[in-house]
């Protein structure tokens, strides 16, 4: 069934189709429609889940993790300040190996207060071990929730699914809703190796000294590395059943491109439109869209960008005192690679500053005209 829905609804439908069993979430702009729709669904019986209406995001994730530990499929959603308040618990979900799925609406961090999009909230979680997937359409949002549970429960790690504030969260787009029974076929029941059960007594997460802590961390790293393959598999299988697939990254016209743009989130769609225009004008431009960001798709990035002469990375975020995060990560990924293109780093669209085809054009132009990479180019700064 095709339905017009905002990104927040797509997120909720994704959760519903995944038959989540416990939801614990707290409202925050621009995520509120998620808690509202899920409340509604739980209230009217459309969704057979328990909604814990917690008093903060810290509790939201703590409760979700608890529910996961009890052996149920748990879901939460938040944004910016709420995600930041969850930070300790994100580490927790990772260390506890509870495959909670968390929807995050990318919103700029305060102060000053802002409710507009920016990736600093989610990217600030890049060192916690939670998986991260950036979506560029509402369809992708809905589908990715389902895929996320598939992978998360396989490798026992939480997954954060990310969408841009307003550009997706509040934008109505057509979304194909798959049949529940197909989803059930794709996504089996959650069945963790250990759970809280008085008939099978275990303590979870007890004090672990230098003797074994290191090995447990190694297991997390192994799991998230395994997740690379699991994402590929889950996406392929999804494609077979539902006819849509997304990849860990997407290569848009990179094959013969002189300049490859690196994008994520909704900037991708705008860049795609712009690239089409530029190609009409005879310019060979391609796009590498990063979808799965954690685990970082090093192989794909090397494969695709390895063939580029010039790369222009567009970051709707900044790691202050360093550079854009995607920029940093792709440089790092390519460092020990055999082919190393020149890479320019652009900062754009922070705090909801609109990124339009003109913005993309300017980035392409500056990359064309320059022959020495620059690391921190602020596009559209009012001077």
């Amino acid at each position, binding site marked *: 069934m095709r339905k017009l829905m905002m990104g927040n609804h797509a997120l909720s439908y994704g959760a519903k189709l995944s038959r989540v069993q416990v939801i614990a979430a707290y409202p925050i702009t621009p995520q509120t429609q998620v808690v509202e729709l899920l409340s509604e669904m739980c209230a009217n019986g459309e969704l057979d889940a328990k909604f814990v209406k917690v008093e903060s995001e810290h509790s939201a994730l703590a409760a979700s993790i608890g529910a996961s530990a009890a052996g149920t499929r748990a879901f939460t959603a938040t944004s910016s300040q709420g995600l930041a308040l969850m930070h300790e618990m994100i580490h927790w979900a990772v260390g506890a190996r509870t495959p909670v799925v968390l929807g995050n609406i990318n919103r700029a961090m305060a102060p000053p207060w802002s409710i507009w999009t920016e990736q600093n909230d989610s990217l600030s979680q890049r060192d916690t071990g939670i998986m991260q997937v950036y979506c560029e359409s509402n369809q992708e949002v809905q589908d990715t929730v389902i895929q996320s549970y598939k992978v998360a429960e396989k490798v026992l790690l939480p997954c954060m699914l990310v969408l841009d504030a307003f550009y997706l969260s509040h934008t*109505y787009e*057509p979304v194909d809703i798959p049949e529940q029974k197909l989803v059930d076929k794709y996504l089996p029941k959650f069945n963790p190796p250990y759970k809280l059960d008085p008939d099978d007594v275990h303590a979870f997460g007890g004090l672990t000294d230098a003797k074994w802590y290191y090995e447990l961390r190694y297991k997390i790293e192994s799991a998230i590395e395994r997740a690379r393959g699991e994402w590929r598999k889950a996406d392929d299988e999804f494609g077979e059943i539902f006819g849509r697939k997304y990849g860990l990254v997407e290569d848009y016209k990179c094959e013969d491109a002189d300049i490859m743009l690196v994008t994520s989130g909704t900037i991708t769609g705008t860049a795609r439109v712009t690239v089409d225009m530029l190609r009409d004008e005879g310019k060979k431009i391609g796009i590498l869209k990063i979808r799965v960001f954690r685990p970082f798709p090093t192989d794909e990035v090397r494969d695709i960008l390895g063939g580029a002469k010039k790369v222009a990375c567009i970051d709707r975020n900044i790691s202050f005192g360093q550079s854009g995060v995607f920029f940093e990560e792709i440089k790092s990924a390519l460092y020990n690679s055999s082919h190393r293109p020149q890479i320019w780093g652009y900062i754009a669209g922070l705090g909801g500053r609109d990124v339009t085809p003109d913005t993309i054009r300017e980035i392409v132009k500056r990359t064309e005209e320059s022959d020495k990479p620059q690391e921190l180019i602020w596009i559209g700064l009012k001077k």
Partner: protein
Amino acid sequence: MIEVRLHGRGGQGSVVASKMLASALLKEGKWAQSFPEFGVERRGQPVTAFLRIDTKPIGAHYKIYKPDHVVILDPTLLGQVNVTDGLKKEGWIIVNSERAPDEIDIKGDFKIATVDATGIAIKYGIGSKAAPIVNTAIIGALVKTTGCVGIKSVLQTIREESPSKPEENAMAAKEAYEKTRTT
């Protein structure tokens, strides 16, 4: 691709109007994207909503700066907000007003249509008398002037999606469709 901007006040349902239009388009196998102004909406405060229409999926996600058409839900906004900002040449500007199009005090290279959406909404008892809800009526006028979508699918959508009084809303749209006056 056709781009439309709607002007209203917080609480008047401009976003719903644009969303219903998009739904109707979907029914016709077209593609649409509808979004509100990105920000805080306060009861009474002037607000805007947007609509993109295309025959193929719409991937781009940026704001609309040069709309093809503009819809004004509340006539009192006319002097308060720059409603013609970026409006394309020959675009429609559709105003909820009792007046005739040529009595509307806007100048520029575009076409004007009016409809007494307020009157129609009151007639069908949509919203209260003090605060009639005109969003379905005004849709009728947009359909009539731009033809971007068929009135049938619009009426069907209104019947399906109106949170209350679906039939009245559909009738209001229909009446507005019929009574729209153009230059």
